[in-house]
């Protein structure tokens, strides 16, 4: 947060406008009117609810249709919304048995899974094949911000060869980002960091979505479903729900070696793992973090550390992503990014940490001339 933003916050707190004279009286009148209206409407009727067995039967029938190749294509409106700026990198995935599924009458499909090796961005479409639940959920979300219907949707990114590794550091829950009125299809977006060891093939990583619409997944570690074909089992799978899978599509990355730039992030935190395995917050011995490479793609910016002097074999965890990263472009424009994710992995005994910030929309990596973190400007060669 820069000085001007601090002033904005302070001034806003002290100069907040007051509603006009008589507002409280008129508000009371509005409350009284609303109460009277609500009382008049109460007639005891309840909306009809369809039964679950019907949904289940329809879902099974529709699943057969789906596998036969009758799944809808991505709607044009959503295609424009999502991929307009990503061309030619992004490809809408063709529906397959793996990336599309139906559970409880709701179809889910991974339509895009992009990765620059540091940031993953996944888009999912859902639509109700048997009713209007998705449309209702979208309206509810629009009116109240309620996203409870997402609580059953989880995703993870992992490598097939890494048996039980389901590393998602800083993964973010899916967010609804659009709705196509014509087809009743909602689009969700999820993001995570991808702490991939550099010697592993990015394309080998897969994305798996599990869960269901509107309900928490019913997990039962003792009786897991078979994982998607070709995958090793995770710790547990939901007993029922969608099991979707898609290979990540790699997009190009601009990588710049910046030596070991010292940055003192304003809001970074440090943790040490104690003998019991608990993360304990610690005061860093050195207020600086040292970044060695800057990687930029259309998805965002990642600063990488090849180990950290603070660690000294002490397994120190550091996170800077809560800080805002300012990206400056060739034409002098800049954008402040606060949508940050942290991740880390061990390559042998060396801990490699990454701090990633997502672009609000696809941006040209070649047009970036510098990034600024904690007041330090990192010029890109």
């Amino acid at each position, binding site marked *: 947060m820069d000085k*001007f*933003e601090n002033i*904005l*916050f302070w*001034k*806003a707190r002290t*100069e*907040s*406008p*007051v*509603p*006009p004279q008589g*507002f*409280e009286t*008129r*508000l*009371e009148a*509005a*409350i009284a*009117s*609303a*109460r009277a*209206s*609500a*009382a008049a*409407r109460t007639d005891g009727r309840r909306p009809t609810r369809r039964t679950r067995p019907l949904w289940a039967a329809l879902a099974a029938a529709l699943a057969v249709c789906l596998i036969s190749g009758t799944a809808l294509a991505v709607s044009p409106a959503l295609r424009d919304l999502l991929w307009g700026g990503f061309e030619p990198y992004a490809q809408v995935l063709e529906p397959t048995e793996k990336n599309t599924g139906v559970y409880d009458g709701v179809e889910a499909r991974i339509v895009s899974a992009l990765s620059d090796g540091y940031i993953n961005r996944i888009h999912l479409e859902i639509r109700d094949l048997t009713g209007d639940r998705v449309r209702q959920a979208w309206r*509810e*979300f*629009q*009116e*109240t*911000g*309620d*996203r*409870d219907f997402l609580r059953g949707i989880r995703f993870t990114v992992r490598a097939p060869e890494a048996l039980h590794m389901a590393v998602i550091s800083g993964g973010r829950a899916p*967010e609804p*980002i659009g709705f196509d009125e014509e087809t009743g299809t909602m689009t969700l977006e999820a993001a995570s960091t991808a702490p991939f060891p550099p010697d592993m093939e990015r394309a080998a990583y897969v994305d798996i979505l599990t869960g269901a619409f509107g309900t928490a997944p019913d997990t039962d570690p003792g009786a897991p479903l078979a994982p998607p074909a070709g995958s090793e089992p995770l710790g547990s799978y939901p007993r029922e729900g969608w099991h979707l899978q898609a290979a990540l599509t790699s997009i190009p990355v601009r990588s710049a070696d910046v030596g070991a730039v010292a940055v003192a992030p304003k809001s970074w935190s440090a943790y040490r793992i104690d003998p019991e395995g608990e993360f304990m917050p610690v005061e860093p011995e050195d207020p600086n973090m040292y970044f060695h490479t800057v990687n930029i793609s259309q998805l965002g910016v990642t600063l990488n550390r090849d180990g950290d002097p603070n660690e000294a074999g002490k397994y120190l965890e550091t996170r800077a992503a809560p800080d805002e990263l300012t990206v400056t472009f060739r034409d002098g424009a*800049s*954008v*402040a*990014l*606060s*949508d940050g994710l942290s991740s880390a992995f061990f390559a042998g005994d060396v801990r490699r940490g990454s701090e990633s910030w*997502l*672009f*609000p*929309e696809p941006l040209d990596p070649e047009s970036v001339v510098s990034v600024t973190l904690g007041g330090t400007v990192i010029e890109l060669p």
Partner: protein
Amino acid sequence: MTDEELAALVREHGGAMFRAARSVTDSDAQAEDAVGRAVLTAFEKRSSLRDERKARPWLVKIAVNCALEDRRRQGRLTSLEDLPGDLPAPETGETFSALREAVSALPEPYRASVTLHYYEGFSTREIAALLGLRRGTVLSRLSRAREMLKKMLEEEE
């Protein structure tokens, strides 16, 4: 939730509802109209408020939606592409402070994000949900609004 409990929440957050609605309307009267309809909506849809701790964003969201609906009906919703290159000069003679004056001179798409963030204390994620925008869009608008405000306040001095 009983009528009285909901009424108490509306009274508590009525000011925030007004300020949020005012950020997307052109006058106090329009904002009050929006708040009036928002109160009615809140009583109709009270079952969607499952956690009273979230009452403030819930009520503000409804108020903003009602105000935006009014603007849409009047065909006055401003698209970012339609904005003029030069910003209007802040009006003078009002009782507002210099900052408030500058904020009120911001084009509507920016004014709403600034009001909700700096005056009402909503996070960018909450604003995205409130306004039905992507969070990135909110961040961009705030960033651009800061630049505009800075310029306007510097010119004022």
